[in-house]
């Protein structure tokens, strides 16, 4: 009976197509709007600080070498802003990819211990091997993040995994890794003094050289994540369906884990473990774009840095003349959001397709 299509069915198929076209137009417009928002936050991040600048002054300082605010903008604010941009992109995308990969709406590289894995590796590198440059410890961050990502996927991915199980496994790993981090810090008070700011997640110590070094990793991760949109979309329907649609689940899975490792390792090495960005942004975006990763991922890549820089600016304003680290602002903002998701009754009971949510 499916061979014979009634005229209504054919006509019915045509209506959604124009609807889809209209929707993708709206999504593109929304993406432009998000970009505008990001730009606004970028300018704000250049202007706000211990010495407030007007937008015009910040702009002048950015462009003209003889401007009075050139030093402030170029030495202090620009590296910090760019680092926030990169870290935001990385964490937002890592969260979105993890949520799609594990089909778990609670996945977040910070909450699940991937960032803690990177921290543990970085702390060991600082303390035992005396490595203090970013170029040195970024590799340790990748190694740490990679090990945890694989372990988590082995435990919490696949069939029959509930969001609660993955979150629990992740937070248990988090606890183990943090007890290791504080153990190392105890044995080495000098490095504690440096690391206690790093382990809460801060952009304040941003150096131009860090920005230059972290950029290639984030860009590589970005490209990999965007390429994964299609296979991960297919995998949202289940392994068998994905295979039938021509995706290669095994390869996509490895690539996704690699992307998560690259992104969260780079972000953690650059500014310490920051949680909840990867959780909040994809959920917010999903409400705007729907589950299609081809739109969701670019939106995340734009809105996550906006959130990150917004939180950083907020941290600079809230407790003048001191400032609040971005990781702490994010926890205070993100914690309630997490609790809100947890309270929704259908979450805890059964596994649910993250992308199909």
């Amino acid at each position, binding site marked *: 009976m499916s061979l014979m299509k009634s005229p209504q069915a054919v006509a019915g198929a045509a209506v959604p197509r124009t609807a889809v076209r209209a929707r993708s137009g709206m999504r593109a417009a929304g993406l432009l709007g998000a970009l505008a928002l990001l730009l606004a936050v970028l300018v704000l991040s250049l202007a706000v600080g211990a010495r407030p600048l007007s937008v015009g002054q910040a702009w002048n300082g950015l462009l003209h070498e003889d401007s009075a605010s050139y030093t402030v903008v170029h030495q202090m604010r620009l590296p910090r802003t760019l680092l926030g941009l990169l870290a935001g992109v990385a964490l937002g995308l890592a969260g979105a990819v993890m949520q799609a990969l594990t089909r778990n709406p609670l996945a977040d590289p910070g*909450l699940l211990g991937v960032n803690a894995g990177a921290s543990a590796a970085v702390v060991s590198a600082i303390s035992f091997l005396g490595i203090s440059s970013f170029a040195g410890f970024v590799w340790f961050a990748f190694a740490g993040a990679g090990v945890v990502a694989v372990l988590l996927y*082995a435990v919490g991915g696949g069939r029959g995994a509930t969001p609660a199980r993955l*979150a629990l496994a992740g937070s*248990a790993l988090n606890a*183990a890794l943090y007890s290791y981090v504080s153990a190392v810090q105890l*044995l080495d008070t000098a490095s504690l003094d440096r690391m206690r700011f790093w382990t809460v997640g801060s952009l304040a110590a941003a150096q131009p050289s860090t920005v230059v070094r972290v950029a290639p990793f984030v860009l590589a991760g970005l490209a990999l994540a965007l390429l994964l949109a299609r296979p991960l979309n297919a995998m949202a329907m289940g392994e068998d369906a994905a295979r039938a649609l021509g995706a290669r689940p095994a390869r996509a899975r490895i690539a996704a884990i690699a992307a998560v490792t690259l992104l969260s390792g780079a972000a953690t090495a650059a500014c310490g473990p920051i949680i909840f960005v990867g959780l909040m942004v994809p959920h917010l975006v999903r409400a705007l774009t729907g589950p299609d990763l081809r739109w969701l991922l670019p939106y995340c890549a734009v809105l996550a840095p906006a959130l990150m820089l917004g939180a950083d600016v907020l941290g600079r304003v809230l407790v003048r003349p001191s400032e609040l*680290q971005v990781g702490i602002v994010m926890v205070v903002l993100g914690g309630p959001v997490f609790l809100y998701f947890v309270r929704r009754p259908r979450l805890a009971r059964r596994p649910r397709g993250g992308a199909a949510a």
Partner: protein
Amino acid sequence: MSRAPRFATVRTPGGMSFRFRPRAFAVSGACLLAALGLGVLLIGSGDFPMGPADVVATLAGRGSPADSLIVNEIRLPRVGTALAVGAALGLSGAVFQSLVRNPLGSPDILGFSQGAASGVLAVVVLTGGGSVAVASGAAAGGLATGLLVYAVAGRGAAHGQRLILVGIGVAAILTGVNGYLLTQANITDAARAVLWLTGSLDGRDWSDSAPLLVALAVLGPLVLAGCGRALRMLEMGDDAAHGLGVPIERVRTIMLLAAVLLTSLAAAAAGPVSFVALTAPQLARRLTRTTGPNLLPALCMGAVLLVAADWIAQHAFAERRLPVGVVTGLLGGGYLVWLLVTERKTGRI
């Protein structure tokens, strides 16, 4: 997986009867003996080593004055604190794991330890107070966190999964808050706070552990005798337990309150020692080979674990004495990974 447990029954002429599992009692007794034995070893070790026989003699009051000073005034309080903290953590871990029906549902994962830590950090950073202030800070922080988690999880807190997830969220928030408090301290206070946050037994005397000992003496029998049976029935599900006459909400509230108090006071005495509450009930369950909450074996196992970890912490790295929390963290982390991998197959996590 586990064999049907064998029961032994004692009947009195008056018609009273008492049914128990010999294996569970044997395991508890063995753990208790091991804990005491390790405690004697621990008392005997240090800069001024003593043989176990001397230690026992001194404890019994037949030692020289110098020995008596070292044993009774310096080392006994430390070992006593270790035993009490371990017992409290083992018991509260068993209660939590039974209530949320999940082997990972221990107080350090659910945020109560972090809450106690926030209380202590606030006291240390803001007032620089002494041990009484620190203890009350820990208890207040832990209780406030418990109330918060319970309130946010809502009436459906019956739903173990949601309680866990809310706890994880609250723990994450509090970790951030703790990090912030740490950056606000000067470096001396920060080093002290980090040492406390890891869990350490250095320099503990009876005044540190007194609140915990009182709590153990009161809450221990209450939990073990008063609610152990109800807890076992709750594991069969709320409906079944209700049908068997268990006042579900009341039992759950009492148990949560008792477990949170024990955790907080243990944290006040020695810092949030990680993973003892997670591993002790699991190991006890494997040894007794019975289902159910295994409260008494878990309590004894917790004491063994903490004393053993402290012994390792003092001896493993010859010139360097680590805080006990580092050893439990590292060993517990390894055990946890193993648990995650094996329990995945049975689908219990």
